[in-house]
């Protein structure tokens, strides 16, 4: 008997077209599974079809597809109730066990057929024509099959058992939808378990299990070992399989083959089973009434419909179950707020909003997709549609009511999220609630997407007239729309919904990003309205007919007002579209990624020949900068003094204007006659033939006017240099000389696709040309800088040098900066509305006359840590000036800039410091590393390492610049903040290093030869230099550094060598202070890679 039921179930499944769609979906998803699951993860040397990678991908896909499992298994028994076949079926003499297990097995085998799509899709994935063979091992069938059986199958079994049982016992459709999400929440909850082993055992998708068991695997092991049948994996699988069996057993016991649930039958009904005897005739007692169908009635209908649909959803337990699960996920994920190096930030509103946003979008998509399906099929599901269809209501009004009802639901959820966010802040003792930021974050950034996708979901439901097909369609559309960018369709007129809004910055708000964002949303909103109208037209008519008939009938029924409305909307859609096109393509230049790449390619192939052409060096820079932040514009008058430092007569000047739209370079004038050659105008590259050549050691002048008046908006509004509040750019903005390597194609894969060799890695320490450069294509060896900056009041403009004068005039503030000694050719221009903290400090190692003025310019509400920062500046200056060399400038400034960029950077006596990087860190606990102080100390250290002493463009350069800054900052930490903090910091560095090492693609080089690997020059650098200090003593290390500086510093150095410093020079100084017995330590620390 059970076999009959099994067979019938399987046959039923094979007939259901939706199952093939699910298969297809999983198959396609799995084909790109590895790319999708591992996006943004550096696999390094681990291959994309390594058993571990396959297993993780399968586990993740299965986990993400739990919704499919729940739909397939959950409806297995529920189906009989839906189609009302229960009474027929249950009246037969089928033993319960045969029925229950027959059904289960039939459904489960059907499920396995569908999920074999994952197996097959992944196998096909590695044979796709465009994959890079170097990223894959040779194909091994068993790697896939083993992962499917040992990792995927048990997950599916547990899911199948659980969903089958809950579906059978609750007999509630929404429970079936919801339970997939519940399991997902369960998964996230396991992440909160602090014991690693327990977490690995209880992870239903065994993702943490796989991570834990492979934690100590080497690359070779990762590429070769199959997933073991022992240890945590065995425990995990045993646990979940037994739990699955247990669930089935309980389900079997509880399940009754009864057509009516007792719960329903027990419900008490107040019965008045017959009509009252009429005591008067019908119409005599009836009240007078009017039927209205005008505007007022329409509005009442719309409002009431909206509320009716919304409250119907709000009354569902399942809705609150989803909402609760969603909140739980979001809140669990929000616990770690904006941490930097293990330190929590203050729970500022925008951080909370961002955390909430991150998870909630997925959760909203689920709600959106399912509830749209539910609401669109509402009348038909229960069988009320004939009654509705016979009502004299416009079908557009009905549809709009449903649409608005859904929006109301989103609003309820959003308000709940906002309330929980505020509650979270309250519990953290943070009382600066910015409700506007909350509203902006949700109602500007998320809500419009929900609106648009709801419109689209309604459209698909109406068009396809098949509930689950439409659900699938909208999900596929969602993915396709994301993928469109990758396929080269990037224009905001074609990318449904437009692009995301830039993050909110407390300094700059939404800045200039908001206006184009709103226009784009409006454009798509019109499109969505048209979708809705279309949906209303083809959704009417009740009985299923061909699309053409429904269309004709719908048009007839909706009549003129709808035609006028859609005509108007269409006109608006076209008008806004035209406006967007005008902005993006006419006022600005529209570049696809492909265009950009080919441009870079052309730049390199046309101009590379000039790379080593001798060009004069800038020795003096005089700028008059006028900033107009409210228009995001500037005008710069520039004067350069140039000197021929080479041995060769210079006859042409190659002037490279910054490549960007709307930047204009005019009035280029030399102090002699020139013949411009504009062959390379396409690359903003002009060659000026000097009528009178520039002899070696000779100087000349150049003046120019550069202006930037941006117009309209671009497709990718990504410029964060010039802002309403918080402008920050450096001399990169200004004209330079000769070929610029920065315009080359960078990524190896891109270069390869155009047939270019990878960019040369750093030169060897013996390369004579590279030793003469301190940065790529440097235009100067050292400059005098004088700058007059003006900006709109009340902003302050800040640069390097001494502020010799400041004044205001006609709503503008003027600042005159001048350096008193040569600085490296690296300066920034910053402008924002600031609060200012100033202090005077005499660094311990400075002469008594050389006190320093310290300034911190910060955004008004970001005063949490400024005192701490000031103290850190003082401490750093004290330590460095007394241990390395006196601080050479009279001022040291920190300026905050908006959080679009997340770093701090040292320029001569000026340190721009990102809003996100410490101004809001919550440093209360004394047992944690004071990261604010550390970052300040690190940047101040660069005033020595990088700004006074430059390193040659050879291997190991970053050790001199960054590792020494790390070491210096650690010494400040040790001196003023305690050894415990240093120890903790070292632990973090050790972790970072291992993490980086795991992702590293190339074989590791010793620290002294480091290239661009952060985990080596930051993390390992800190560790090794600290170890040196422990081994030979800080005093000796500092003496070595002092000598190193003395020998190699770029300025005030009468015996400055001809070239720049290398790690060889640094290590020589270390060796000079190290006793013979410890020389090997230096070799081990800096010149060897210890494989551990």
């Amino acid at each position, binding site marked *: 008997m059970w076999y009959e039921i099994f067979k019938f179930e399987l046959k039923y499944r094979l007939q259901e077209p939706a199952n093939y769609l699910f298969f297809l979906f999983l198959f396609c998803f799995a084909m790109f599974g590895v790319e999708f699951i591992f996006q943004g993860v550096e696999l390094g040397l681990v291959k994309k079809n390594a058993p571990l990678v396959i297993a993780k991908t399968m586990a993740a896909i299965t986990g993400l597809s739990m919704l499919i499992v729940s739909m397939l298994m959950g409806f297995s028994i529920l189906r009989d109730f839906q189609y009302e076949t229960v009474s027929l079926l249950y009246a037969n003499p089928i033993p319960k066990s045969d029925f229950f297990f027959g059904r289960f097995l039939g459904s489960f085998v059907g499920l396995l057929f569908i999920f074999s799509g994952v197996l097959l899709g992944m196998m096909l994935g590695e044979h796709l024509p465009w994959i890079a063979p170097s990223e894959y091992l040779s194909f091994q069938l068993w790697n896939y099959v083993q992962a499917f059986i040992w990792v995927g199958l048990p997950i599916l079994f547990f899911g199948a058992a659980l969903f089958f049982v809950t579906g059978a016992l609750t007999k509630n459709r929404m429970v079936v939808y919801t339970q997939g999400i519940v399991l997902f929440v369960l998964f996230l909850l396991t992440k909160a378990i602090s014991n690693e082993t327990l977490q690995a055992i209880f992870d239903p998708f065994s993702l943490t299990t796989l991570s834990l068991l492979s934690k100590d695997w080497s690359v070779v092991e990762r590429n070769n070992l199959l997933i073991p049948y022992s240890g945590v994996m065995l425990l995990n699988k045993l646990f979940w399989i037994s739990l699955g069996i247990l669930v089935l057993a309980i389900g079997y016991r509880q399940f009754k083959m009864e057509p009516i649930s007792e719960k329903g039958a027990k419900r008490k009904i107040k019965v008045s089973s017959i009509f009252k005897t009429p005591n008067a005739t019908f119409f005599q007692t009836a009240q007078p009434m009017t039927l209205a169908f005008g505007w007022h009635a329409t509005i009442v209908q719309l409002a009431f419909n909206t509320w009716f649909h919304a409250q119907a959803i709000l009354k569902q337990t399942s809705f609150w179950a989803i909402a609760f699960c969603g909140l739980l996920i979001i809140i669990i994920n929000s616990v770690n707020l904006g941490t930097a190096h293990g330190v929590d930030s203050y729970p500022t509103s925008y951080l909370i909003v961002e955390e909430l946003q991150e998870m909630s979008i997925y959760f909203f998509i689920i709600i959106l997709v399912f509830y749209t399906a539910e609401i669109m099929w509402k009348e038909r599901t229960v069988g*009320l549609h004939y009654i509705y269809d016979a009502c004299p209501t416009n079908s557009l009004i009905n549809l709009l009511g449903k649409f608005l009802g859904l929006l109301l639901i989103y609003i309820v959820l959003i308000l709940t999220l906002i309330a929980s966010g505020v509650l979270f802040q309250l519990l953290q003792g943070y009382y600066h609630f910015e409700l506007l930021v909350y509203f902006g974050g949700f109602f500007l950034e998320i809500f419009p997407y929900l609106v648009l996708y709801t419109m689209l979901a309604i459209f698909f439901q109406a068009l396809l007239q098949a509930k689950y097909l439409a659900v699938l369609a909208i999900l596929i559309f969602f993915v396709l729309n994301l993928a469109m960018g990758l396929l080269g369709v990037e224009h905001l007129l074609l990318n449904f919904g437009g692009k995301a809004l830039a993050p909110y910055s407390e300094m700059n708000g939404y800045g200039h990003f908001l206006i184009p964002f709103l226009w784009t949303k409006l454009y798509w909103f019109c499109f969505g309205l048209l979708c809705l109208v279309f949906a209303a037209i083809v959704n009417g008519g009740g009985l299923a007919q061909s699309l053409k008939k429904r269309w004709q009938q719908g048009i007839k029924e909706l009549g003129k007002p709808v035609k006028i409305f859609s005509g108007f909307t269409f006109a608006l859609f076209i008008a806004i579209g035209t406006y967007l096109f005008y902005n993006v393509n006419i006022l600005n230049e529209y570049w696809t990624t492909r265009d950009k790449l080919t441009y870079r390619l052309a730049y390199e192939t046309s101009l590379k020949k000039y790379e080593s052409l001798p060009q004069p060096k800038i020795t003096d820079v005089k700028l008059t900068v006028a900033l107009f932040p409210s228009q995001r514009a500037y005008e710069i008058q520039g004067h350069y003094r140039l000197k021929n430092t080479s041995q060769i007569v210079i006859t042409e000047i190659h002037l490279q204007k910054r490549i960007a739209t709307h930047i204009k370079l005019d009035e280029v004038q030399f102090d002699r006659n020139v013949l411009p050659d504009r062959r390379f105008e396409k690359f903003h590259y002009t060659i000026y033939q000097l009528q009178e050549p520039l002899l070696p050691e000779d100087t000349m002048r150049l003046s120019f006017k550069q202006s930037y008046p941006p117009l309209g908006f671009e497709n990718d509004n990504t410029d964060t240099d010039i802002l309403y509040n918080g402008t920050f750019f450096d001399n990169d903005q200004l004209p330079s000389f000769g070929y610029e390597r920065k315009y080359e194609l960078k990524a190896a894969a891109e270069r390869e696709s155009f047939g270019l060799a990878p960019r040369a890695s750093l030169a060897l320490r013996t390369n004579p040309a590279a030793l003469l450069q301190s940065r790529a294509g440097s235009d100067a060896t050292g400059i005098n800088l004088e700058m007059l900056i003006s900006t709109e009041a009340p902003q302050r403009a800040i640069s390097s040098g001494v502020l010799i004068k400041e004044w205001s005039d006609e709503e503008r503030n003027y600042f005159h900066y001048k350096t008193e000694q040569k600085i490296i050719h690296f300066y920034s221009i910053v402008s924002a509305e600031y609060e200012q903290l100033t202090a005077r400090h005499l660094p311990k190692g400075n002469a008594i006359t050389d006190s320093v003025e310290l300034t911190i310019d910060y955004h008004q509400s970001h005063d949490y840590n400024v005192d701490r920062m000031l103290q850190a500046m003082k401490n750093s200056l004290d330590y460095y000036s007394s241990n390395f060399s006196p601080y050479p400038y009279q001022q040291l400034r920190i300026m905050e800039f908006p959080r679009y960029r997340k770093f701090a950077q040292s320029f001569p006596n000026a340190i721009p410091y990102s809003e996100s990087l410490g101004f809001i860190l919550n440093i209360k606990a004394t047992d944690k590393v004071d990261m604010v102080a550390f970052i300040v100390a690190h940047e101040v250290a660069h005033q020595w390492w990088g700004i006074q002493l430059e390193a040659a463009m050879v291997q190991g350069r970053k050790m001199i610049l960054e590792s020494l800054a790390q070491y210096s900052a650690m010494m400040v930490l040790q001196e003023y903040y305690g050894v415990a903090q240093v120890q903790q910091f070292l632990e973090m560095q050790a972790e970072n290093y291992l993490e980086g090492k795991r992702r590293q693609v190339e074989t590791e080089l010793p620290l002294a030869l480091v290239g661009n690997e952060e985990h080596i020059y930051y993390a390992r650098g800190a560790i090794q230099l600290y170890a040196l200090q422990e081994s030979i003593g800080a005093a000796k290390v500092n003496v070595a550094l002092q000598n190193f500086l003395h020998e190699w510093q770029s300025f005030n150095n009468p015996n400055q060598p001809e070239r720049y410093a290398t790690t060889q020079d640094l290590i020589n100084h270390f060796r000079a202070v190290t006793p013979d017995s410890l020389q090997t330590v230096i070799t081990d620390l800096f010149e060897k890679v210890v494989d551990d």
Partner: protein
Amino acid sequence: MEKLILTKVSKTYGNGIAALTNISLKIPCGVFGLLGPNGAGKSTLMRILATLQEPDGGTIQLGEINALTQKLALRKRLGYLPQQFGVYPKISLETLMHHLAILKGLAKRKERQARIDFLLQRVNLYEVRQQSLASFSGGMKQRFGIAQALLNEPKLLIVDEPTAGLDPVERNRFFNLLSEVGERSIVILSTHIVADIQALCAGMAILYQGRVLVQGNPLALMEKLKGQLYEKKIKKAEREQYHLNYQVIHERLFLGEPIIRVLSAEHPRNGFVPVAANLADSYLAQINQA
């Protein structure tokens, strides 16, 4: 008073089955019965009248309104109780009534409330108006169905097989209500039960295999059979023979023995006795002759 006039209404389904062929009817105010066996096309016709389906040909006119092109106008005057319908779980009777009332154009709150209260009292559901419809019995659900159909004081009320699932007492009350409505509106009732028509309808039509066999007053229909109907009690073994020799329109069992009614222009003798025709006989005679 407006009349509902159907002219040559036809409908063929996609699979080639002709559901309705050239239906022409003139229906005045009052309760009009549409009688026919299962599958005769009653529900299709009712759905077409309720503007839910489009016929392939023919016209339907309610007074000035062309029901096929002015659907919205017709719907404003329409009340419809489908043969089968479900209800939302968790929504109270009153909420659903408000919802439907608004859809039907009862935009003014006070009037709507009064109308709903009135109707619910009339169908005796007022006491349970706060309860969820899911908990209702079949009869209660049907009463909700008629109450919602009457919300807008329809000029045309269409009730499709409404008596299924009602017990005899309930059916009686239900008919009283319909008959009252019929005093002012056109009420079209479809059924396969002759007694329903007999109880209620002044006018009727018999629908069989998509065609109207006959229409008119039930009494006139019965009159047609006057003096042509004979009855005889026979043995089971003789059944086949009688069916061959006579036009048997009806056979029923009485104490286990068949009694047959035959149609005959003159007295068949042979133990037959003449009987008076009832509506069922007319109906069966029509169907037999078709």
